[in-house]
């Protein structure tokens, strides 16, 4: 009978529905009106929204500086209405280090993919962690280079096909995946390390809480906070968005299990 009831409600005018008091969901005010260039089904859009919501809810728009990577999220600065720096490939933690040290009252975060952070930028992320920089790192791990057309990333799973591992990643040829979050958990300079996903509404809510916690920790002077989001790249993976989510749960989560890895305040 619920179907019938819904049908009846449809009769109210669109103007009525648009009234603020009737809205149960909206775009965060810090997301710009620019149309995102991300592929349908990509996790980036959801993570952008969560970051925008956190900054908005914390009321820190005027105190936040974001650092974009090179990769699919190179244009993140078009979508979230804050001050941004566009780094060279892999170097975002270096920019963030200087920004935070020179402007310690600011909330400084990098937003990096797995090619940017786990391949060309390993030195920068490891040493930012080692120094205990009071910054937030949002790490999008989808196991592939999206922007350049689906090549192998350091996080690509064994057997996973990419345009540079057309027969699947072979450890003899390509080595093994890097599990960055676990690696940096051993470093004394890291305060909070967590691995989340955004493929369901509950997962996205948890991810948002993690991002908020990371931002809060970054002002406590206790070290670097790192939020890995295990993500999909349905275009690169050659799957539909739904199948990509399924494949992620069945394969990516085994190598990159979801949950908190380190929290020095617990």
């Amino acid at each position: 009978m619920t179907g019938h009831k819904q049908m009846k409600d449809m009769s109210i005018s669109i103007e009525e529905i648009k009234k603020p008091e009737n809205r149960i969901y909206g775009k965060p005010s810090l997301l710009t009106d620019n149309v995102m260039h991300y592929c349908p089904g990509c996790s980036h859009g959801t993570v952008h929204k969560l970051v925008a919501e956190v900054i908005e809810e914390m009321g820190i728009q005027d105190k936040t500086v974001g650092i974009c990577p090179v990769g699919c999220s190179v244009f993140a600065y078009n979508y979230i209405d804050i001050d941004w720096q566009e780094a060279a490939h892999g170097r975002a933690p270096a920019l963030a280090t200087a920004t935070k040290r020179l402007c310690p009252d600011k909330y400084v975060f990098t937003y990096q993919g797995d090619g940017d952070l786990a391949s060309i930028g390993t030195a920068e992320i490891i040493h930012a962690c080692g120094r205990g920089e009071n910054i937030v790192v949002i790490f999008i791990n989808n196991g592939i280079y999206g922007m350049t057309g689906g090549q192998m990333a350091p996080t690509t799973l064994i057997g996973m096909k990419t345009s540079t591992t057309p027969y699947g990643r072979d450890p003899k040829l390509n080595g093994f995946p890097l599990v960055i979050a676990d690696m940096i958990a051993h470093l004394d300079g890291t305060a909070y390390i967590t691995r989340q996903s955004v493929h369901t509404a509950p997962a996205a809510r948890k991810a948002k809480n993690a991002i908020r916690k990371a931002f809060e920790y970054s002002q406590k002077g206790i070290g670097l906070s790192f939020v890995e989001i295990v993500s999909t790249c349905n275009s690169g993976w050659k799957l539909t968005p739904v199948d990509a989510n399924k494949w992620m749960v069945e394969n990516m989560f085994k190598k990159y299990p979801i949950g908190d890895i380190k929290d020095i305040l617990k």
Partner: protein
Amino acid sequence: MAEKILMKGNEAIAISAIRNGVDGYFGYPITPQSEVMETLMKEKPWETTGMVVLQAESETSSINMIYGGASCGKKVMTSSSSPGISLMCEGISYIAGAELPCVVVDVMRGGPGLGTIQPSQSDYNQIVKGGGHGDYHNIVLAPASAQDMYDFVDWGFDLAFKYRTPVVILADGIIGQMMEKVEMHPMKPRRTDAEILEAAPWATTGKPAGRERNIITSLSLDADIQERFNRKLKGKYEIIEENEVKFSEYMTEDAEYVFVAFGCSSRICEAVVDELRAEGIKAGLLRPITLYPFPFKEIERLSKQVKSMMSIELNLGQMVHDVRLAVNGACPVGFYGRQGGNIYTPEEIVSEFKKFNGLA
């Protein structure tokens, strides 16, 4: 009278940074310039002026810290020597592309590759002609004394902020390692947040309500937008070339032979000029103080009064190409250089000069 302190060129860079209100230094050790960061760490300016000093994990990281700090409108600088500068050139290109101000010090040593740790001037092409990718220029200042090292930091930041462009102080192992007396000027405080907002309204200082977000980027993707930007840079470089050329002359008024030399080589050539003058040969010296913009007009003017010119460089002949461009065939242009970290003596240059001019 201002206090005169005996210090190395490298120490002068560090002390000048503190005394001229620099906000941050990010660097990585490399001979022959490690005293810059060592001096800063010893002086602990974070306890006095609030200046940030950080030893980065690499030159790549250092220059990208400069990129981040400059994005915030701060006065930030780094220093390195040739192999480290090669690593930084990528970042310098981004800084030029994002139109950010910064000062980079290159205390040159012999190359290519790891080369030697002794003095050289073989990064002329790298620094003056670009170094990183894309159409851009660094403003390049060539110090010839510890006092220049001290003075050029402040001058460098003035130019860097005036034109929103990277400025390179192109020194060498001699100028970095040699101690001379340095006159300290009165201290300049670091800029306040309000002063930064005024001097650098483009900076990423956090977006308040009522202004557009500030985005520091060197990316456009659209060819037409990029071309417009390239032409904007060209316009800026034309203004720099028109207004910022600096050079000095030594005994050129009646000179029949003129040496062109920068940095430590200009010091050595002063002795050469003295020696030749003592023999009755009317020699003179033009020292470019800015290598970009280069004193083309002045060299062209001198080329019409002299019998020949000679470029003296600690490399295989790099600046000499610019000298020849300026001379444009008006007189013969010779070159003498030493490489690998070897340094010429005045006597050696006198003898090469005579050979070139058939005076031997």
